[in-house]
C-alpha cells in the first residue's frame, strides 16, 4: 500500500500509467454520456408537473455533484501536498481548480435555464443557488491566488491552505445560507433513501453522473499530464519522451 503511494508520487511513473488509463476512461465517459443523454432526452418519461423542461436536470445534477466533490478533492490533494510535499498532489490540486469552477458555472447556468420556465425567473436568491455562487467565488479565489505567485511551490502551498480554509467554511456557509432563505427542493438523489422518482428517470441520471465523473477524470488527467511535462521539462525522462516523438 505504502509502496504504491510512493510510486504514485513519482511524476514519471504517473505519466506512464495515466497514458495507459486515459483511452479507457475516455471511451467509458463517451459511452456513458451518449447512452445517458439519449435515454434521458428521448426515452425517459416527461414529468407530470414540469413537462419536458425537467430534462435539464440530467446536466444540472451531475454538474452540481461534480462542483462539490471536485472542491473536496482539491482540498484533499492540497492537504497531501502540504503534509507530504508530494509534487503530484500539488499538480492535481492545481488542475482541479479551473475544472471545478467550470462545473460550478455549468450548474449555475443550467439552474438558471431551468428556473426560468419553472420559477418564472432566471435567478432567485435561494439558499442552494447562493451557496453554489459562493462556491464559485471560492474556486475563483483559489485560481487567483494560484496565479499570483511566481514560485510554483509557494503557489501550490498557499492555494492548498486556502482551499482547506474554504473546506472548513463550506458547511458553515451552506447552513447559514439555508437558514437565511430557501426555495430549492431538497436533493433528489441521496445515498440513504429510495428516490422519489420512477426508475426510468433516475437510472439515466445515475448514468449521467457516472459519465460526468469519467469525463472529469479524463480532463483532469489531460491537464495534469501537460502540467507535469511543463514542470519536469528539464528532467531526463521528459527529454526522452520529446526525443522519441
Amino acid at each position, binding site marked *: 500500500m505504502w509502496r504504491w503511494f510512493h510510486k504514485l508520487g513519482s511524476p514519471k511513473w504517473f505519466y506512464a500509467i495515466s497514458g495507459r488509463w486515459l483511452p479507457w476512461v475516455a471511451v467509458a465517459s463517451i459511452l456513458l454520456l451518449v447512452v445517458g443523454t439519449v435515454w434521458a432526452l428521448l426515452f425517459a418519461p416527461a414529468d407530470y408537473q414540469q413537462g419536458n423542461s425537467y430534462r435539464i436536470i440530467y446536466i444540472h445534477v451531475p454538474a452540481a455533484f461534480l462542483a462539490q466533490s471536485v472542491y473536496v478533492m482539491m482540498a484533499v490533494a492540497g492537504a497531501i501536498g502540504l503534509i507530504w510535499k508530494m509534487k503530484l498532489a500539488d499538480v492535481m490540486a492545481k488542475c482541479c481548480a479551473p475544472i471545478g469552477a467550470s462545473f460550478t458555472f455549468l450548474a449555475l447556468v443550467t439552474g438558471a435555464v431551468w428556473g426560468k420556465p419553472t420559477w418564472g425567473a432566471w435567478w432567485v436568491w435561494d439558499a442552494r443557488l447562493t451557496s453554489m455562487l459562493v462556491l464559485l467565488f*471560492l474556486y475563483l479565489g483559489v485560481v487567483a*491566488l494560484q496565479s499570483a505567485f511566481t514560485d510554483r511551490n509557494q503557489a501550490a502551498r498557499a492555494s492548498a491552505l486556502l482551499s482547506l480554509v*474554504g473546506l472548513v467554511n463550506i458547511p458553515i456557509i451552506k447552513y447559514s445560507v439555508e437558514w437565511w432563505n430557501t426555495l430549492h427542493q431538497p436533493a433528489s438523489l441521496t445515498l440513504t433513501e429510495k428516490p422519489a422518482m420512477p426508475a426510468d428517470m433516475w437510472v439515466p441520471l445515475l448514468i449521467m453522473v457516472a459519465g460526468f465523473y469519467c469525463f472529469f477524470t479524463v480532463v483532469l488527467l489531460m491537464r495534469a499530464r501537460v502540467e507535469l511535462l511543463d514542470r519536469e521539462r528539464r528532467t531526463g525522462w521528459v527529454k526522452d519522451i520529446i526525443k522519441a516523438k
Partner: protein
Amino acid sequence: MTAQVDVKQVNQGIFIAMIRRDMTAAFRHPSDLINPLIFFVVVVTLFPLAVTPESDFLREIAPGVLWVSALLATLLSLDMLFQSDFQDGTLEQMILSPQPLYASILAKVFTHWLLSGLPLTLLSPLLAMMLFLSADGTQALMLTLLLGTPVLSFIGAIGSALTVGLRKTGLLLSLLVLPLYIPVLIFASGAVQAAIAGLPIVGHLALLGALLALAVVLAPVAISTALRISLSG
C-alpha cells in the same frame, strides 16, 4: 507541573508584549487608524444619496448597509496587520523565535481588532441614528459588531498572511476573504433585522459567538501556516 505554569507565563508575556508593541507602532501612524473609520462613514453616507433619503426605506436597509460597510472597512484595514512587519523583517524574527507563534498571532489579531473593530463598533450608533435605526436595532447592531468584527479580523488575517509577500494585494485579498465573510454577514444583519421586528436575537448572537470561538481556535493555526508559506519564498 512547574513546567506547565512556565509555559503559560511565557505565553502571557508574549501576548502582552506583542499587544503593547503593536499598539505603540500603530499610534505612531494615526492616519492608518482613522482612515478605515472615515471610509466607513463615507460609504454609509453614499447609500441615502444613491437610493433615497426617505426614513422608512433607510430604516429597512440600515442593518445591511451598516454591516456591509463595516465589513469593507475591516477589509481595508487588514493592510496594517502584517505588511510593515513583513517589510522590516520583524515577521521573520517572530517565526524564528523560540516563543510559540500561536500566542504572538493571537496578540496581533487582537490588537488589530482593538484598533479597527472596536472603533467601528463605537462609531456605529451615530451612523445607525443617521439611518433612522430604532433603539433596539442599534443595540443589536452594536452587540453583533462586538461579536462579529473579531471574526472578521481572524478570517481577514488568514488572507492577509497568504498575500503578504505579494506586490499588489488589495484586490486579491478581497477576492479571497469576502466569500468567507458571508456567514458572519448573514447572522449579524439577521440579528439586527430580528431586533427591529421585535423578535429575540439570542439565537443569532449564539451563532456569532460560536463562529468567534471557532475562529479563535482554528484561525491562528491557518495564519501561522500561511505566514510560513509566505516567508518561504
